[in-house]
């Protein structure tokens, strides 16, 4: 069909992009992570493992991230699935486009401003004030893990809705009709047909949200009041406050490795789940 050099030419932009914007910066991070901090900050070339040996000093940040990122992803999934299901299956197709656009609308405003707005919703004059009217006093929402998780679900929800929506929309409705004809209850059909067939969407959505959450720093900084500390916050402080580029690079490189391992495990798990499902469907 196409000659090899045309193929190469067509691949060139993508390859160049990956090399310049991904491979080279990662290489710089790895090289820096073996260096030292300059006396006034920055980076001084060296070859030492000191930065990696010092990693336990950021253990709390890694622990926080590795707990709150999966919990945030799960909450996003729980909130997004019914909505995606409603949009893909239940809603009148005439309204579908409008409703989908409405989900994207918040993206027109910067996430910074939208998260800042939550400071006031969760702050003392916001929801806690409303709760006082019904007699529940002394509720503290802002600057807690709860506030951070709320911000996460709010900010990342669309990223979870869309992949699930796409997988549900493709779902062949005749399968559900066949199941009903053969006497299955709607709950059984959902459990055994709809849910398994939407797993690719769930997997994609979870992956998207989880990976972005691992690098999150804005939401914990604003809604956690600086008291909920993610690896992202540790990195911001290392580069912008203490200007310890070498140690910052070591933390960043470790974060990439932790992420690759977690995502790798996750994909393996998903594939195994998929294989089991195929076995069942052979029946």
């Amino acid at each position, binding site marked *: 069909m196409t000659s090899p050099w045309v193929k190469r030419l067509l691949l060139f932009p993508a390859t160049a992009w990956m090399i310049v914007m991904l491979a080279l910066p990662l290489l710089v991070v790895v090289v820096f992570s073996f260096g030292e901090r300059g006396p006034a900050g920055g980076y001084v070339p060296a070859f030492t493992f000191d930065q990696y040996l010092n990693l336990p000093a950021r253990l709390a*940040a890694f622990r926080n991230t590795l707990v709150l990122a999966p919990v945030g992803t799960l909450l996003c999934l729980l909130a997004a699935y019914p909505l995606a299901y409603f949009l893909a299956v239940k809603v009148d197709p005439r309204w579908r486009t409008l409703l989908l656009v409405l989900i994207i609308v918040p993206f027109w405003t910067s996430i910074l401003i939208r998260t800042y707005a939550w400071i006031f919703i969760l702050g003392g004059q916001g929801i806690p004030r409303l709760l006082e009217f019904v007699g529940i006093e002394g509720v503290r929402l802002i600057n807690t893990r709860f506030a951070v998780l709320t911000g996460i679900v709010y900010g990342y929800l669309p990223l979870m809705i869309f992949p699930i929506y796409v997988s549900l929309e493709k779902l062949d409705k005749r399968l559900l009709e066949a199941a009903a004809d053969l006497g299955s209850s709607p709950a059984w059909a959902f459990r055994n047909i709809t849910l398994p067939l939407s797993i690719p969407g769930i997997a994609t959505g979870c992956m998207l949200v989880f990976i972005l959450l691992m690098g999150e720093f804005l939401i914990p900084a604003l809604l956690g009041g*600086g008291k909920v500390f993610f690896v992202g916050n*540790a990195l911001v402080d290392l580069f912008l406050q203490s200007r310890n580029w070498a140690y910052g690079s070591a933390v960043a490189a470790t974060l990439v490795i932790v992420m690759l391992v977690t995502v790798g495990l996750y994909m393996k798990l998903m594939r195994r789940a998929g294989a089991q499902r195929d076995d069942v469907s052979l029946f």
Partner: protein
Amino acid sequence: MSSKHQKPMTRKQFMRELRRYQKGSVTRRHFLGVTGLGMATAVLGAAMPGLAPRKSWAAGDIGDRVVLATWPNYHDAANFEQFTETTGAHVQVNVFGSNEEMLAKLQAGGSGWDVFVPTNYTITTYVGEGLIEPLELAKIPNYDAGSFEPRFSDAGTVDGTVYAVPKNWGTTGYAVNTEHTGGKALTTWKEFWDITREEFSGRTMVHDYQLTTIGNALKYFGYSFNSVDPQELADAEKLLLEVKPHLYAISSDYQPSMRNGDAWMTMCWTGDGKQLNADIPSIIYVLGTEGGEIWSDYYAVPKDAPHRDAGYALINFLLEPEVNAREVLAHGYPVADSRTNALLPKELLEDPILYPAQELLSALEFGAAATLTDPNRAELLARFKSA
């Protein structure tokens, strides 16, 4: 001129007109008209050609923009508009949260800034790293070294060369809402940390900034604000970790929480204290009797400034006493320039937030260069935040 304004205005009337203009209640034309400033400028301009807007400016010689890196709530927007009107250069403002962040940005290169606002203790570091240029004072005729108090201007001179000219000075104390203190007057840093663990639990904010948060924790024990002694830092860390569960937040953006009543007390800089107190009188500004920080901010020009001429023009404009006086009225930080102070209303010059009593002032320390760059203090703050 119409006969209406034959009598010269009193100072009070002038200030009222100025405030009306600043609030946007009257137009610039009205303001210049009633105060006679418009006429005065025109007459002066005709008599002294050097004072008239220079042609090169009008022709846009300095370019169409100038980039300023500065601190939050630190300028009068009307002044920037006036600068744009007279020079054609738009002022693009980048707001920063800490000196470290500014230093990091300049160290990384390509900041794109023409002017920035470093604090006293950073300037030797910038000079040592070769990040700022010696100022071409001929381009800043409004800078008159003689009219500045030396202790607020001498950090701008390194080895006899002027690298930075003074902007404002101020102190780091704390703001406390007296509605919640039960009539008890707080006066010390010891009380700040103690009350946070008791009646004020969950209501206190500290800066997300190692210099002040660690420095003021050191004051609890009577150590120097600038200490880098490992034993003293260990004491400060112990205190910070004990206090952390009782904190409302670790953030330098404390005005919103103080204003809506969620936070009752916060570490606070002079101007924020003044702004809070002006709007909510029950919030007062306290300087710990043990001491704490006094600081002075400067204007400096980075070495790779892309709109260098515009940068100098902006510094010169902002140092003009009339302009500088409007700045002070807007942000509430004192200046060390006697020419500007001569234009400020008396009640401002007697304000105890801006100009604290001498015995409180003399206990304060200027931050040191070593305090900013000390890696142990940076790590201490990281441990405090992630604990």
